[in-house]
């Protein structure tokens, strides 16, 4: 017994590192190393074939004066502030509907999750088609029943609304699955105890479910925010950033500057700014979570 105890504490120091090792090895090699290399380029002016010129913080100074950068930054922030709350509420709502085990629930879960299973390009192309002014099925139905068609993607305001809606539509299933996992982890006894005490459905939700899925909520909020800030492929396929640049977000700007204007350093600098923005918001979310957490 004594020998095992000693071995135990050695195990406890080495074990976590071994558990972490496979993931960190792959991660370190394939993500960290390129990331450092890629972000360092923000300090250079670099066009693909060749001359890397060290310019220090010149790219960042240029960014401050760049109207397109701030425009896309503003568009992105507005998008994040709309999508993240809507998505969280929507995902939690669907999870509440689908977390219990009534007959057929598997199919419902599958249906709600299905949009996430489509590739971003397909979703973009399909919705662009569905929402088309002339050839879109929605406007077609509207016309047939005598209502006037809506310019879903053709006015800046509508385009932004459509983009938000489609994003929520697409990713609700994804976060719903996470919430279901979290809800399932709540011990059954708590519910029985609560209903014996006469708690109403609403009280059970606000006093039991919501607090206990806090860890999941943190994941959903953090991941949701990060992914929203990085939105690109879906939006670009839908609107190409249009009309004009009303739905042009940061990553599209990064992409264009890097591959069309051939200024990798400048694009990298934009990515750094993006990271700072996300990092700030994420840190706030973690801090708020810590203040409320019990363990």
């Amino acid at each position: 017994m004594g020998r095992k105890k000693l071995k135990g504490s050695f195990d406890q120091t080495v074990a976590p590192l071994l558990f972490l090792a496979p993931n960190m090895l792959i991660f370190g090699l394939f993500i960290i190393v390129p990331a450092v290399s890629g972000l360092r380029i923000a300090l250079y002016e670099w066009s693909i074939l060749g001359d890397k010129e060290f310019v220090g913080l010149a790219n960042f100074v240029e960014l401050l004066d760049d109207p397109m950068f701030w425009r896309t930054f503003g568009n992105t922030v507005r998008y994040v502030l709309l999508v993240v709350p809507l998505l969280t509420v929507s995902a939690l709502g669907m999870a509440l509907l689908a977390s219990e085990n009534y007959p057929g629930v598997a199919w419902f879960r599958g249906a709600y999750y299905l949009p996430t299973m489509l590739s971003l390009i397909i979703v973009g192309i399909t919705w662009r088609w569905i929402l088309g002014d002339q050839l879109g099925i929605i406007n077609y139905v509207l016309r047939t029943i005598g209502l006037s068609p809506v310019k879903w993607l053709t006015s800046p305001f509508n385009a932004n609304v459509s983009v938000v809606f489609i994003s929520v539509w697409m990713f609700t299933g994804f976060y719903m699955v996470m919430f279901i996992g979290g809800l399932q982890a709540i011990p059954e006894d708590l519910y029985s105890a609560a209903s014996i005490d006469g708690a109403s459905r609403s009280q059970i939700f606000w006093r039991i479910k919501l607090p206990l899925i806090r860890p999941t909520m943190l994941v959903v909020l953090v991941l949701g925010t990060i992914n929203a800030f990085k939105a690109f492929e879906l939006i670009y396929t839908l609107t190409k950033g249009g009309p004009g640049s009303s739905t042009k977000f940061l990553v599209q700007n990064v992409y264009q500057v890097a591959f069309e204007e051939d200024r990798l350093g400048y694009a990298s600098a934009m990515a750094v700014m993006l990271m700072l923005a996300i990092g700030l918001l994420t840190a706030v979310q973690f801090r708020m979570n810590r203040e409320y957490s019990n363990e």
Partner: protein
Amino acid sequence: MNRKTGPAQYVLYSFFVVVFLFPVLWVLLSSLKTQSELFRYPLTIFPAQPTLENYRTAFASGRFLQYLKNSSFVAIVSTAITVMINTMAGYALSKYHFRGRDTIFFVMIATLMIPLQVIMIPIFLLEKNLGLLNTLWGIIIPPAATPTGVFLARQYMMTIPNSLIESARIDGAGEWFIFQRIILPLAKPIVATIAIFSFMWRWNDFLWPFIVISQQRKYTLQLALSNFVGQYNIDWSSLLSMTVIAIVPMVMVFLFFQKYFIKGLSSGGVKY
């Protein structure tokens, strides 16, 4: 809590099914139309003469089965690896205390914030130097260490009572034994979640295969699909039918794994 699910609830659930599924239905119905019917006006919802021609051409292109095989191999193997290493890492980050633990965690989260476009070239160079270009392993291994999966595992495992672990240690159980026989069974919901997500990410992945693979016979389905979007036109018939086919495996994986969301697994006790 026994709440009977009445017809009213089913109507509500079905309503949401329509909301979420109707574009997919649109894709499905359109895939059964001929190319010329797609852009005929007035539009038709249901195909005038349903045809499987689009599917026939997709399969006849010969390469399609190859792409399917590649995508399946990548998705399955990568998912297996991901589940293993993500849960291990999540466990380490949630149930142990060691120096640098939180730093590692935050660094992982921080890398999520980098748009892949910025590090495409360094990744390409790295994989080239490692000889992983044009190999399926080049798109199986690197993305397997997803920070998201680790994040999910960590959050979930934080809710597992420490008392379980401690009492097992007192009983003389080794660390790996604890992980394998206590933690993992309790973590079935999150394992299932990570499996579903990982399969989907690898199956739908475009950027990683785009960076690594240039030879057609190593193409995944997504790479092949994107080739149907030409310079001026979209080859809708091939695109639609292949999309429908591509969804099927993911649906199957989902239906298989979702049964692990079974309530009552953590009813306070542990059975092993």
